[in-house]
């Protein structure tokens, strides 16, 4: 149990705060609470620390983005199938997002229009490094199955490690 949580519970036990106030305080400290010795914060989407359980490292500690693509022979049309395994440092992606800020303002409109035309409705000027952090935090273990015409699928796995 971390120090903040202990203090809140002690205040509740001493009658200094009500149960409702304690609940609000516990909820408030939950996302940013520092882990105590031997305890770690859970991954995004999993329960964190409330029951004292020790779970995996937080996403912010992830260093790499791994993309695995597995296509069998029938899907890729290549004998023996195709396997792609790419590991990219997350710092490289963060720097890449900053690259978008170098695109001249007058080109943003044209790029947004081209993206929308090709089925990717995004606004380039709104992509910020913070968005990438948010994406990484929520990227637990994404698997995309791309269906082919004959019922075969290509598996695309994306995760941070």
């Amino acid at each position, binding site marked *: 149990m971390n120090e903040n949580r202990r203090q809140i519970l002690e205040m509740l036990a001493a009658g200094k705060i009500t149960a409702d106030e304690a609940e609000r305080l516990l909820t408030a400290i939950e996302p940013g609470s520092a882990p105590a010795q031997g305890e770690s914060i859970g991954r995004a989407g999993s329960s964190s620390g409330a029951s004292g359980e020790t779970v995996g490292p937080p996403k912010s500690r992830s*260093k*790499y983005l791994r993309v695995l693509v597995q296509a069998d022979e029938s899907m*890729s049309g*290549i*004998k*023996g*199938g*195709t*396997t*792609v*395994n*790419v*590991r*990219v*440092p997350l*710092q*490289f992606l*963060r*720097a*890449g997002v*900053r*690259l978008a*800020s*170098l*695109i*001249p303002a007058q080109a943003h409109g044209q790029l947004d229009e081209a993206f929308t035309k090709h089925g990717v409705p995004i606004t380039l000027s709104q992509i910020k490094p913070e968005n990438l952090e948010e994406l990484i935090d929520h990227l637990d273990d994404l698997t995309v199955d791309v269906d082919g015409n004959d019922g075969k699928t290509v598996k695309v796995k994306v995760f941070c490690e």
Partner: protein
Amino acid sequence: MTPNLAVLEIRAPHWHMPRLWLPLFLLWIPVILLSPLILLVFVGAGIAFRTNPWRAIAVFWQMLCTLPGTDVRVTADGTHVFVKIL
């Protein structure tokens, strides 16, 4: 840290290239020699595209420094390609 080495390996069913360790740090020699020209290119491009050339240099430098750790493995048609940047 900037990339110092690149490892390249290509394996085909009937042909096998020995793993190559490419000394990327040696590229610093031509880069340093050509640095005035590279700087001019960045400044020229910055003026042409109305972007801050110093910011562009900073972003490219950041991208260069974050390249180590990149690992690409592709297997298709019995051919295996492996690229790693250290």
